[in-house]
């Protein structure tokens, strides 16, 4: 592998890593409260609010129904407003985050909903308020499931970030398309796929280990 090509790989690798990690962090901090809100306001939640639940639920599903490539285009005005530009890595992070957040929120919602209702009842009986129940019961008990959900979301982000090349954000996916598809350099395409494969399996293994660690005493 020649030196300039190696630099291209390195650059693409770092771009992908930046997009995935920044989007994942933002998705975590928006998606988790969203998931908690969905569980708490659901008809059988600790503070049922059918209207709010329906609104949130509709937004979440609406975003999830939109194909990512459409979202890239749809959110160009928003990206311009927030980032000041519609191209580049920061510009790609906006649609990536918006795309993954509802996905992560739904997965976390399932884990939160799975928390034994007896535990919530016990917390209520001991005089816990709603916030206490979220803080001391729902979140700690659902944590392993939430961590597993985050792992899945990160893997999905590697996938969608490949499309961010369309916004000039570069990344491994972009490299593969330009060299592999447009220049018929299949070898580079396969290298990229191999790197992505390593990244994904690495993330998954790390995630699994972390979940295992969280469950060590349970």
């Amino acid at each position, binding site marked *: 592998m020649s030196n300039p090509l190696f630099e291209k790989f390195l650059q693409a690798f770092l771009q992908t890593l930046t997009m995935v990690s920044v989007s994942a962090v933002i998705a975590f901090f928006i998606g988790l409260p969203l998931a908690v809100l969905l569980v708490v306001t659901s008809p059988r939640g600790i503070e049922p609010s059918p209207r709010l639940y329906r609104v949130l639920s509709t937004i979440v599903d609406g975003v999830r129904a939109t194909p990512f490539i459409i979202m890239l285009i749809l959110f160009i005005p928003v990206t311009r407003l927030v980032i000041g530009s519609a191209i580049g890595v920061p510009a790609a992070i906006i649609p990536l985050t918006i795309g993954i957040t509802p996905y992560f929120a739904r997965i976390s919602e399932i884990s939160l909903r799975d928390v034994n209702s007896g535990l919530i009842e016990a917390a209520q*009986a001991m005089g*816990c308020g709603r916030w206490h129940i979220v803080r*001391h019961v729902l979140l700690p008990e659902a*944590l392993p499931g939430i961590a597993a959900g985050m792992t899945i979301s990160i893997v999905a982000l590697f996938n969608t970030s490949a499309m961010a090349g369309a916004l000039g954000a570069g990344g491994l996916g972009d490299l593969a398309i330009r060299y592999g598809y447009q220049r018929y350099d299949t070898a580079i395409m396969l290298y990229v796929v191999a790197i992505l494969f390593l990244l994904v399996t690495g993330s998954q293994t790390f995630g699994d280990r972390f979940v295992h660690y969280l469950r060590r*005493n349970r």
Partner: protein
Amino acid sequence: MTTSVYPHTGLRGISAKTQGKRADASLHVASIAEAHNRQGRPQVRFEAVSKQYAGQLSDAFALQDISLEIHQGEIFGVIGRSGAGKSTLIRAINRLETISQGKLEVLGQDVAALDRPQLVALRRRIGMIFQHFNLLSAKTVAQNIGLPLLVAGKPQREIDDKVTALLALVGLSDKRDAYPAQLSGGQKQRVGIARALVHNPDLLLCDEATSALDPETTQSILALLRDINRRLGLTIVLITHELDVVREICDRVAVLDKGQIVEQGEVWKVLGDPHHPVTVSLLNPALQTLPANLGTRLLSVAPQGEYRTVISLRYTGSQSGQLDLNQLHSLVGSGAQLLHGNVENVQGYLYGRLLITVPGAWSPAQTPAAPQNADNSSQVPEIIGYVQSPV
């Protein structure tokens, strides 16, 4: 969060023990002083309470016209089959379930009228333990026990001291930093009890607290509850489907069936002289059923030839704790043979049933002995059938 002050040395157990004793003693004194102020007023009062769920075809009653009073310092049992409404009844007390009609007063407060802060304040005076323990798997034993204090905003030092005292009380001082998954069922319930006692409650609700435990562990948990009841003067309300639990520790019992109380009173009275078929069916089968070899041979009318009469003798409430055999003999007459028998002692009262056969015809009038005895126990002989001799 909470970490043990003491490292894993032998010292830890000793100091935990002494601390426990000290805190325990102060607990006791406080509760006696409080008990004085509370005398006379029922801790829990159901007044024509009903609860119904709006159904599609008809409104189903979970509770119907429940009236009962639970007094300071007693252990009150509610027994019934599953689906009888026990769970709804006990959850109404701390408003985990709301009631539809009637009035429910707990610790002098109208439960339905409380706003959120008042409800939280009331719940902090009521401990609750559960069939499946409901301990938080992500927290240690100490964190589980201390949680009610933590959410009440108590300082960590106070929480630690209280946890240490309660761990000593329930006999789990060495499990402070264990996680619930590392404990046995009985140990989990002990943690549940410690957690329920952390606010020095006036009332303890037990929701099938021993139903998930083996008989031996059940005994130890019941003994612990009895001990807490006596030492702290704590009023206990428990629901169960196990008659043994009621027999073991309850002072008074209510029998619940299809959302209604069909019988209530002191345990020895209700168990010894049940009036309602549901109570009868909940009772020890030995008191109800006939020995297997007798059932098929029992005739409803006296047969031709030689035969024996089978008498069922139920007796209740002999406070002497003894069954006078002489008296029994004079009641049934000569030639009597004992076929099957069962004697139970509840709260110092004897009750049970004997199956006796006598030769030939028999009627209660044929013996001069009075069925009502001097010590107010009653013996109720009843002819249940006839068998061809020999038995």
